[in-house]
């Protein structure tokens, strides 16, 4: 039965991938992509990557989907022009051949791996007691490879600045997104009042259990960002203008705290981002608490887009 499930999933995913590529209009392709994300969550589940499945469900399904749909809606007016400029058949065949070649190379590499595949997992599990966290993923992300996580947080900030740079000159420093009228029907306003408390509790819960069970700050931050976006969509709260001091402070607080902990480690334990004996859990918590608001803001602001409205008087 498991084989049926796995084959079924693989077939569905391949079919969806083909459909996403050949779909005529952007919104149809986006929907295909979102379902693809949902199925990938199940694949990760089957591969026993629970943390990855959590992240895929949060980001691949929800957040990226909304990002793409709003992009597709915004691009609707330019669809006909884009279609007129579509590359010729030979270019597309070349692209298809190239993609197939890369896929083939990847498949050969994976299939040619020795049995059992080389992995550092046993070493992680052997040394995990030192980090005082129970979840090996968290231990890798925030202890053994904390440097990567720090750089990733900084890259996210740069991405946000990149999105902001798309603002028209007169709107710089203003509020992103269009002003949302509070829904006349009241339906969205109702949901935006009832769902976010539940979502916030769920987000904090998933953040908190990330220490010992699958979860962590990234998935938790995604949930919090989604709830914030929901409230803004309903018009109950307006988007903050991007030159607000508190916003900018919160955005850099995460990476700054991370770097501070790293310097502390360099001073007390001999290397940047190493943790002094016995303080590992505390420092990891400090980093996570500082990164949570940063990540939430970054994710929410990236979905809102570039500032479109100048500062309201």
């Amino acid at each position, binding site marked *: 039965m498991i084989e049926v499930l796995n084959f079924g999933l693989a077939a569905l995913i391949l079919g969806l991938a083909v459909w996403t590529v050949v779909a005529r209009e952007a919104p149809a392709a986006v929907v295909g992509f979102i379902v693809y994300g949902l199925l990938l969550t199940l694949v990760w589940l089957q591969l026993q990557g629970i943390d990855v499945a959590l992240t895929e469900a949060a980001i691949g399904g929800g957040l990226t989907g909304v990002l793409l749909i709003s992009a597709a809606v915004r691009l609707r007016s330019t669809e006909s022009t884009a279609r007129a400029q579509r590359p010729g058949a030979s270019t597309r065949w070349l692209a298809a051949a190239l993609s197939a070649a890369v896929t083939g190379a990847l498949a050969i590499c994976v299939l040619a791996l020795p049995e059992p595949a080389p992995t550092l997992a046993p070493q992680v599990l052997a040394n995990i007691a030192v980090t005082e966290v129970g979840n090996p993923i968290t231990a890798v992300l925030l202890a053994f490879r904390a440097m990567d996580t720090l750089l990733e947080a900084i890259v996210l900030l740069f991405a946000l600045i990149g999105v902001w740079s798309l603002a028209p000159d007169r709107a710089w420093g203003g509020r992103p997104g269009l002003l949302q009228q509070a829904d006349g029907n009241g339906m969205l306003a*109702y*949901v935006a009042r009832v769902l976010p408390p539940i979502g916030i509790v769920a987000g904090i819960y998933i953040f908190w259990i990330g220490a010992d069970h699958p979860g962590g700050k990234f998935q938790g931050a995604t949930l919090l960002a989604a709830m914030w976006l929901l409230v803004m969509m309903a018009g109950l709260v307006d988007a903050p203008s991007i030159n607000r001091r508190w916003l900018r402070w919160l955005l850099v607080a995460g990476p700054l705290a991370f770097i501070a902990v790293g310097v502390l480690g360099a001073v007390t334990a001999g290397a940047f981002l190493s943790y002094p004996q016995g303080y590992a859990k505390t420092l990891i918590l400090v980093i996570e608490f500082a990164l949570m608001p940063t990540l939430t803001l970054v994710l929410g602001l990236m979905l809102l887009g570039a500032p479109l409205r100048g500062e309201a008087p």
Partner: protein
Amino acid sequence: MKLFLDLWTLVGVLAGAFFFFAGTVGLLRFPDSLTRLHALSKADNLGLGLVVLGLLPQMDSVAAGIKLVGIWLLVLLSGATAAQWIARTLRQSGPGP
């Protein structure tokens, strides 16, 4: 006791799967958007609800069971409001083909 619990799971999950089936068939075959919406909400409420009910005996703790029921209530809430909203918008712009 174990036999009874397993039987409960069997019945619950089968019933839930049936409602998913019914909802999907409705979504595919009903003649217009509003009726399809009706079929969809059956899958949401009853399909997932019966599956959750069936899975409760398989959980190892009461907390896990409560979490499952919580997930169902969440889906119920969002499904119901989304259905209401879609229905209202359809009614405003005409039900369509």
